[in-house]
């Protein structure tokens, strides 16, 4: 057999070559794949802390005595922070790619931004009609729950990922039912069941990612395929 000798010296054995290709495959997947575990973890923390903090500062006899305005600012800061982490992670994995998968990834990323901007504007418009802080808080809480749940639901549907679909359905359900508990309590529901649900999903995704044996030779899914 004619061995190809190039600048990198003698051709290694098949075993070495297999190791090289597997190593490079993993490296590429790690760089290109969106990590649902990281994103769920980020949102789990943001919701867990954000809604938790709102709950502790709300009501007639709050655990922490902080004006609603500041508590809400802290909440929005956490949400925006999680949004920035998400956008940074998506942009990083899609950087330098072009094609249908890259386009659908970018479009999906933008649908989050557009959704939240539209939600903020809608709540702002409702606010002009003169609503109480409680209604305002309810709109933000249940509105973002509805938006996030629907986005996960549709992403799960398009990628045939039952776990993401399940997370979306869970958020929608918890949000719709929890809203009936009224404003300080709905915070607690969203913090524990919503944020906690995200964290749990993040752990499941992280474990699933670890046990996944290099699916080789394969076409690692970029962006929305969430690995595998």
């Amino acid at each position: 057999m004619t061995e190809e000798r190039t600048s990198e010296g003698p051709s290694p054995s098949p075993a070495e070559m297999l190791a090289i290709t597997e190593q490079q495959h993993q490296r590429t997947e790690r760089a290109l794949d969106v990590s649902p575990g990281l994103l769920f973890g980020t949102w789990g923390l943001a919701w867990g802390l954000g809604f938790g903090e709102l709950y502790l500062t709300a009501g007639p006899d709050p655990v922490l005595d902080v004006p609603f305005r500041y508590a809400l600012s802290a909440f929005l800061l956490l949400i925006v922070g999680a949004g920035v982490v998400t956008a940074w992670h998506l942009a990083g994995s899609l950087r330098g790619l072009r094609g249908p998968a890259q386009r659908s990834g970018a479009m999906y990323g933008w649908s989050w931004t557009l959704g939240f901007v539209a939600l903020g504007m809608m709540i702002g418009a409702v606010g002009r009609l003169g609503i109480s802080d409680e209604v305002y808080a309810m709109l933000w809480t249940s509105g973002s729950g509805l938006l996030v749940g629907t986005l996960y639901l549709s992403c799960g549907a398009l990628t045939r990922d039952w776990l993401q679909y399940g997370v979306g359905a869970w958020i929608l359900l918890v949000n719709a039912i929890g809203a009936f508990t009224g404003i300080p309590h709905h915070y607690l529901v969203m913090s524990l069941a919503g944020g906690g649900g995200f964290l749990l999903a993040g752990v499941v995704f992280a474990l699933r990612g670890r046990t996944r044996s290099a699916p080789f030779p394969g076409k690692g899914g970029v962006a929305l395929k969430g690995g595998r």
Partner: protein
Amino acid sequence: MEPGEVRLDPVIHAQARLRVMTTLAALPNEDRIAFGRLRELLDMTPGNLITHLRRLEEAGYTDSVRTGSGRGTTYVALTEEGRAAFDTYTRQLRALLDPVTDGEGP
């Protein structure tokens, strides 16, 4: 080494080009990757990568598209032929190793 009758594709059977092929094969089917990002993922010098890409392109395994006028960005992807050749190559590698690793790997 004694690979028997199996003849591994000499275009792919070189460390650097195998790594290029592996990286491109990990992209979703119709997506392309910018030369710069490909280089990052491979830790290769531009000159080195260009040389190997030229060889792969001559074999019909990859193709490059230049976007924009003047100093645009070059986007690289595997051709259908390249993907098939890569799949064949890795299958052959596994087949070569299977009897050897017997009882060890899956």
